[in-house]
C-alpha cells in the first residue's frame, strides 16, 4: 500500500511537469500582448517603454528559462503578482478559494442527495415504472445545460418568488453563515443537479451488481427485512465505486463553478479566471490552471487510495 502510494506520487512528477509546461506555453501563446494592454493604460505606447515593461516582468527571456524560473517560484509558494493590479495572486486566491470550494462541496452534497436515493430505488425496483422514471431523469439531467437552468430560474425568481435571485452584495460565510448559505444553496443546487445524472447511473449499476451477489440472496433467505438488506448489506458495498465517480467529477465541478459564478456574481476562482483571461493576466491564469490541475491529480490519487481503505478486498501492490 505504502509502496503503491509512493510509486503513484513519483509518477505524478512528470505529469505535473507536463501539465504546468503545457499551461505555461499556452498562456504565452495567447494573442494580444499583456504589455500592449498595460502600456495603453499608462498612455505609454512607445516601443522603449514597452521594452522596459517587458524587462520588468522578464517576458523577454527564452520560454524555457521563464518556465524554470516560474517553476522555482511555485515550489516556494510564490505565485507572483497580477500584472494588471500588481496584487499578489496568492492573496487573491486565499480570498476566493474558500468561496469556490464552498460552492463545489455544496454542489457535490446536493448531487449525492439527489442521486443516491434515485439510483438505489432505480436498482431495487429494476424495470418498474419507478426505474424508468429514474433512468430518464438521469439522462435528462446529463443533458440540461446548467447555465440555462440558472438563467430561467433567475428570470422566474424575479417575478414569482424571492429566492434564487443573484445577490447584490456577497456575504462571507465567516461573517454571516445563514445569510451566506441562503445565497449559495440555489446556485449549488443547480450545479449539483447537473452532476447528479452520472452519479445516479453509476449508483444504479453498482447497486444492481451487488444485489445479484450470493450474500444478498443469503440475507433474503435468512428472512431479513428488505430495508435491512438494502441499507445494511447492499448499499455499503455498492457505494464504494461511487466514490470514484465523485472524485473523477472534480474537473467538471470546477468548470461548472466558472459558469455559475459568472451568472450569480459569486466572487470565487471562476470569475477571477474569466477576468484574468480577458485581460491576459499571465500569472493569474497560470496559477489557477496549475491549482486546478493539482486538485485533479491529487483527487485521482486520493480516490484510488481511499478505495482500498473502504474496500479491504482491493489491495494495491
Amino acid at each position, binding site marked *: 500500500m505504502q509502496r503503491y502510494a509512493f510509486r503513484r506520487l513519483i509518477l505524478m512528477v512528470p505529469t505535473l511537469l507536463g501539465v504546468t509546461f503545457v499551461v505555461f506555453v499556452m498562456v504565452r501563446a*495567447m494573442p494580444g500582448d499583456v504589455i500592449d494592454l498595460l502600456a495603453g493604460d499608462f498612455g505609454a505606447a512607445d516601443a522603449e517603454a514597452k521594452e522596459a515593461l517587458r524587462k520588468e516582468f522578464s517576458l523577454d527571456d527564452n520560454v524555457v528559462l521563464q518556465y524554470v524560473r516560474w517553476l522555482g517560484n511555485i515550489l516556494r509558494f510564490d505565485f507572483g503578482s497580477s500584472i494588471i493590479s500588481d496584487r499578489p495572486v496568492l492573496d487573491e486566491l486565499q480570498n476566493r478559494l474558500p468561496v469556490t470550494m464552498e460552492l463545489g462541496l455544496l454542489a457535490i452534497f446536493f448531487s449525492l442527495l439527489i442521486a443516491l436515493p434515485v439510483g438505489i430505488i432505480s436498482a431495487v425496483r429494476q424495470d418498474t415504472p419507478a426505474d424508468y422514471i429514474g433512468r430518464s431523469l438521469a439522462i435528462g439531467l446529463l443533458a440540461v*445545460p446548467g447555465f440555462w437552468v440558472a438563467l430561467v430560474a*433567475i*428570470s*422566474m425568481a424575479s417575478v414569482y418568488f424571492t429566492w434564487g435571485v443573484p445577490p447584490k452584495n456577497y456575504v462571507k460565510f465567516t461573517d454571516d453563515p445563514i445569510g451566506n448559505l441562503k445565497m449559495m444553496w440555489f446556485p449549488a443546487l443547480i450545479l449539483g443537479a447537473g452532476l447528479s445524472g452520472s452519479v445516479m447511473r453509476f449508483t444504479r449499476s453498482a447497486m444492481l451488481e451487488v444485489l445479484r451477489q450470493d450474500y444478498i440472496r443469503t440475507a433474503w433467505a435468512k428472512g431479513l427485512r428488505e430495508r435491512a438488506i438494502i441499507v445494511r448489506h447492499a448499499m455499503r458495498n455498492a457505494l464504494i465505486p461511487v466514490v470514484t465517480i465523485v472524485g473523477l467529477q472534480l474537473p467538471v465541478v470546477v468548470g461548472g463553478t466558472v459558469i455559475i459564478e459568472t451568472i450569480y456574481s459569486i466572487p470565487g476562482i471562476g470569475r477571477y479566471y474569466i477576468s484574468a483571461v480577458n485581460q491576459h493576466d499571465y500569472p493569474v491564469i497560470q496559477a489557477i490552471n496549475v491549482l486546478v490541475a493539482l486538485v485533479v491529480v491529487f483527487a485521482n490519487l486520493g480516490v484510488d487510495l481511499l478505495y482500498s481503505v473502504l474496500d479491504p478486498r482491493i489491495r494495491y501492490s
Partner: protein
Amino acid sequence: MASDAQILEQYALRPELSGFSRYRRSVLNFLRKKPLGAFGAAFILLLILMAIAPGLFTSANPDVGQVRDRLQGPSAEYWFGTDQFGRDIYARIVYGARTSIVIGILVVAVSSTIATLLGIFSGYFGGWFDILVQRLVDIGISLPGLIFIILVVTTLTQFPPDFLGLSPSGEVVMRISVALGVLVSLGSSRVIRGATIAAKQNQYIEAARVIGAPDFRIVFVHILPNVFAVVLVGASIQIGSAILIESSLSFLGYGVQPPTASWGRMLTENREQITRHPHLAIFPGLAIFLTVYSFNMFGDALRDVLDPRLRTR
C-alpha cells in the same frame, strides 16, 4: 484431412468472425427494441437535415430582423417570438443547429480517430511506446477541463482569420472542434487501449500471428472490429457533451462570434431581456437540451445493442 493452416483459417479468418457484418442486423433490431433510442435517432436526423438545408425549415433570415417587431412573444408569424433586434428566434434556432451539429460531429471525428489510433497501437504494441503514450495521456487528462479549454480557445484566436481558408465562422468552428477533439481524445484513448488489451488475449489473434499475419493486418482486420463498438458508443455520447461544451463556451463569449447563430450565444445575447421576456431563454435552452438528450439516448441504446458486455444494468 484438413491441414493446420486450413483449420486455422476456418477459425481465425472467417469474415463473419471479424465482426463488421453483425452490425447490420443489430441496427434493424435497434429500431424495434429501443423506441427511445429510435426517437433520439429520428431527432438527430432532423437536426442533420436542418444543418444541411435550413432553408427547408424557414424562409426567414436569421441574422436580419424587423426592428418594429422586436421582443415579441410567440405568434403565428414568429413561432418562437423575436429577440431584441426583431430577429426570428425560430429561424435562429434552425440555423444554430448547423453550429452545434457541425461542432459535435467534427469533435467526435477528430477525437475518435486520434483515440482509436493511439489506443490500439498503445495497447497492441505495449512496451516503451505504451509507457510514453500513457504518460502523455496522463498529462492530457490532468488538464483542468473547461478552464483549460477557455485558455486554448483564446489562444487560437491569434491565427489570422483566414488561416484555414474557410469562412470566418467556419474558421472558428473548425478551430474549436479540433482543439476540443484533441483534448477529448486522450481520455477516450485509454478506454480503447483497455479494450485492445482485452481483445489481444483472444485465441484467433494468436492464430493469426502463428500463420504469419503482419501486425498491420492483425490490428486493422482483427483488433479494430473488436474495439469498434467501444469507439462507436463513446462517440455517440461524446457528441452530446461536445455540444454542451460548445454552448457553454459560446455562453461565456468564447465560442462562435456574431452574427453566426449559436444556441449558447443566443442565451447570452438576450440575457438582459430574459426577466421580462422568458421566451428568449426557453427556446434556445430547449434546443440544446433536446439535442443532447437525443444523442445520449441514442448512444445508450446503441451500447445495449452493439455490445452487451458494456451494458450498465
